[in-house]
Structure formats: structure tokens, C-alpha cells
């Protein structure tokens, strides 16, 4: 019984982290029409930057905030100075994001070394929550809560504000959005910064569960890709549902059928591509 409960909770916590990663990935993909292959690296960069910040200010949430802002600034520069120079050349942009991902990976290896660095769970969240004789890891519950709150805030931003409506207008018909005076280039920067911030903060918040290690970037990136293909490009609801589906499949797949973990992971994606190419909640063809 404990096994199933804990694995369920692990799935949900991983799903929450994946949502922080894939929400921005999906928005960037939907608006800018490019798969940002740097996204996994931004997650890892966030984790490492968090490690360093934590040595100075020993507060995980402050580290997540600061780290998120730093990664956002990095993402903003990447969009503004490199991707914009390649505007209209989607393939070039995707290749550049892949190149930057490799650069970040090497940079992290040089600065933080090759050994995994554990991120301590905040003191006050270490004691498990005991309900009806079952022990729940408290930190994972908090991560799930953060993901849900983030999802609600993002949803309100996208659905209830003029900025959100402008972003959706850009997803619907970018050329026409420009023609009614929507500053699409500025939206690109905003969305890229937002996505980078979420990925970076996600890396730090995920630290106590995943820790920071070389290769974290390319472990996360395919998951974000699968989630967005599954949920639909540019759809927050899709990213949310997709994240939890993949969280469950990945966790239970690794626990029950470790040899087939990747098969189980990619199988639903193949079915979705075959039968619902726009994803479960998607509007755009990819």
C-alpha cells in the first residue's frame, strides 16, 4: 500500500516539476513556432545557480526566486540578441537553441564539476506528514502545491489579462496580430523570459528531489517535448495534463518495468501523433 501511495505522490511531484518546465516550453513553441531546445539546459542551469545561491542565502524559496530571475535574464538576452537576429528562420533558431544548450552544459561542467550536487530540503519540510498511519514526504506535497498555484496564475495571466489575450492573438495569427499593432517582438521577449524563469525556478525547486548533475538537461528536454506533443502546442491546459500523465508514466514505468521505461514513455506520444496530431488540447498543427 505504502508503495503505491508513495509512487503516486512521486508521480504527482514529478508532474508538477514537469509542468514548470513545459508550460514555458509550450508557450514559446506556440507563439514563436520554435522548439526551444535550450529549455532543458535552462532547467539545469537553474538547479546549479540555485546551489550557489543557497551557499550564500540558505533559503530555497529565495534561491528559486533569484535563480528564476537570473535564468529569465539569460533567456531574454538569448531571445533578444541571438534568436531575433534569425527571425523567420525557424530551423536556424532551433539549431541555435541546441548549440546554446551544449554551451550551457559545458559551462556548468566547468563551474560546478561533474559530481552530482545534492540540494538540501528545507529543514521544516523534512519531517514526513503522517496521515492515517501513512507517511507522506512533505516536500513533494509542497511541490505539487507550487505547480498548481503556478498553473492557476498562468491561466489567469493568459485568459484574464490583455497581455494574455495579445499572446493568444499572436498564437492564432501572428501576421494579423502585428497588423493590429500588437508588439509581437516584445511579446516574444516576454514569453521567452517567462518560460526561462519557470524552467530555472523549476530546476531549483526540483533540486531536493532530483539534485543538480550533468545530464539533467537532456533528461528533462525530451520529457518537455513529449508533454507538449501530447498536450498540444501553445496550450497551458495541455501542458498541465500532459505533465501529470508523463509524471505518472515515467515514475511507474521506472518502478515497475525499468527495462521498458522509455518505451512506455514514448508509446503514448506515438499514438497521439498518429491519431491526434494536434495533441489532446492543441490548436496548432506542429
Amino acid at each position: 500500500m505504502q508503495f503505491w501511495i508513495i509512487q503516486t505522490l512521486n508521480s504527482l511531484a514529478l508532474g508538477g516539476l514537469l509542468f514548470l518546465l513545459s508550460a514555458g516550453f509550450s508557450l514559446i513553441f506556440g507563439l514563436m513556432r520554435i522548439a526551444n531546445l535550450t529549455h532543458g539546459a535552462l532547467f539545469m542551469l537553474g538547479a546549479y545557480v540555485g546551489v550557489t545561491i543557497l551557499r550564500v542565502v540558505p533559503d530555497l524559496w529565495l534561491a528559486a526566486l533569484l535563480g528564476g530571475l537570473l535564468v529569465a535574464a539569460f533567456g531574454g538576452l538569448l531571445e533578444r540578441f541571438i534568436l531575433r537576429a534569425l527571425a523567420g528562420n525557424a530551423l536556424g533558431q532551433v539549431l541555435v537553441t541546441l548549440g546554446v544548450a551544449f554551451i550551457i552544459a559545458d559551462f556548468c561542467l566547468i563551474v560546478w564539476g561533474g559530481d552530482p550536487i545534492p540540494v538540501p530540503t528545507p529543514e521544516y519540510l523534512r519531517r514526513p506528514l503522517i496521515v492515517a498511519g501513512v507517511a507522506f514526504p512533505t516536500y513533494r506535497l509542497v511541490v505539487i502545491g507550487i505547480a498548481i498555484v503556478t498553473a492557476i496564475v498562468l491561466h489567469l495571466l493568459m485568459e484574464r489579462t490583455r497581455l494574455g489575450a495579445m499572446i493568444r492573438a499572436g498564437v492564432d495569427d501572428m501576421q494579423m496580430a502585428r497588423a493590429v499593432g500588437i508588439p509581437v517582438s516584445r511579446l516574444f521577449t516576454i514569453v521567452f523570459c517567462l518560460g526561462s524563469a519557470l524552467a530555472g525556478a523549476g530546476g531549483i525547486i526540483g533540486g531536493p528531489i532530483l539534485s543538480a548533475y550533468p545530464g539533467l538537461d537532456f533528461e528533462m528536454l525530451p520529457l518537455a517535448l513529449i508533454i507538449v506533443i501530447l498536450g498540444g502546442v501553445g496550450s497551458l491546459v495541455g501542458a498541465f495534463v500532459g505533465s501529470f500523465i508523463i509524471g505518472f508514466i515515467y515514475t511507474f514505468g521506472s518502478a515497475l518495468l525499468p527495462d521498458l521505461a522509455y518505451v512506455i514513455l514514448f508509446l503514448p506520444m506515438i499514438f497521439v501523433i498518429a491519431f491526434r496530431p494536434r495533441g489532446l488540447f492543441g490548436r496548432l498543427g506542429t
Partner: protein
Amino acid sequence: MTEALSLSGVNALYGDSHVLHEVSFSLSAGRVLALLGRNGAGKTTCMNAIIGFLPPRDGRISLFGEPIARLSPEAISRRGIGLVPQGRRIFPTLTVRENLVVARQLRPGTARPWTLERVSELFPRLQERQQQPAGSLSGGEQQMLAIGRALMGNPRVLLMDEPSEGLAPRIVAEVGQTIARLKKEGLSIVLVEQNIKLAFGLADDVVMLNTGRVAFSGGVDALRNDEATLTQHLGVF
């Protein structure tokens, strides 16, 4: 008369094919200019060149004397050109209200600026459907929304690309009345139309394009009874 919009010597290309040849015409402030021609004559291309979708290779385009050729579409929109595009191109997943709100631009010095309220008053039917996704509207309603959306930007010049296309005759008449009202309010309009009757009813001036070149340019009255010119360049009479 003040020149609201003028094109001079505009050449535009789609890849290797040269679609606009030395196009020049000008729209006076407060007037309606009908841009006519057969399919493929270059009318929509002309609109695309003005709004910046297809930056012209050379030539000048100016809005109240200010050069706008080769600016980005958002910069051109912000300088005061509104577009009601061919095929309407409303944002289908946004609500009717959101379609209008995202296009809002305030222009200092506008005497009676267009607001959500004024657009709703112009098109009461949109008011009733405010919270509906725009993609669920009928063709006529989508056309009204496309016009309302362009007005929300408080344009100094309005480009309308076939606003009557694919609409029932009753709705065409309604769209015609709306354009007449906008003209009365002093808006300068370039109107691309296949519906010659509608165009002649609204226009002060006419420019006719034939295979990307200006074939006729003059007052509407001179053209109305000139069947030879009409047949030659439109082939519909």
C-alpha cells in the same frame, strides 16, 4: 486637399515574380478610394505592401507625408493604418471582446476616439456576443468584428480588402452602410472590392489595376459611364 496616403513608384515581388509595377496613387483625407481590378490584378498585394506584409522592393509609401514603406506591420499600424483584411482573419480562439481589446490604440489628437462602447454601438450584434469565441460567429458578424477591430486602433487611414466577400446581400448592404457612416465621420478609406455596385456607391475616386500596373486613376463619375474602360480592365460588364 491633404494627402492621407500616397504610393509612388512602388514595385513589389513575390519571390521572383514581379507583382506590382511602379504603382502610384494617392488618397485624399476624408475620401474613399476604390481599388478595382480583376482577380490577380494586384489589389491585395497593394494592401499587403501598404501594411507591411510584403515590403515593397522600392518606391515610396507615405502616410500624411511620413514615409512608412518597409517598416514592420506593427510600426505601420501604430502610425495609423488600420486593416480589414481579406478573409477577415479575426482571432478565432479569442472572444469577441478580446479581439477588440487587443487592437486598442489611443492616438493623441483623435477628436472622437473609437472605444469598446462606440464599436458596440456601431455593431449592436457584437455587443450581444461579447463573450463568445470569435470563431463561432457567422461570416457577417466576423466581418463586422474585423471592421470593429480595425477601428479600435483609431486609424487615420483604413484599408478594407473585399469587405463584402462571401456575404449575403442583406449583410453586404449593412456593411455598405457602415462604410458610408465611417466616411461621413471623416475617415480616409481605401476600399478593394469585386462588388462594383457597392464600390461605386461609396467611392469618390477610383484606381484600376491591371496585371500589377495602374490602368486608370480618376474620379468615380468619369468612370461610371465609361463602359469601354470598365470592360477592358474589369471585364464584368
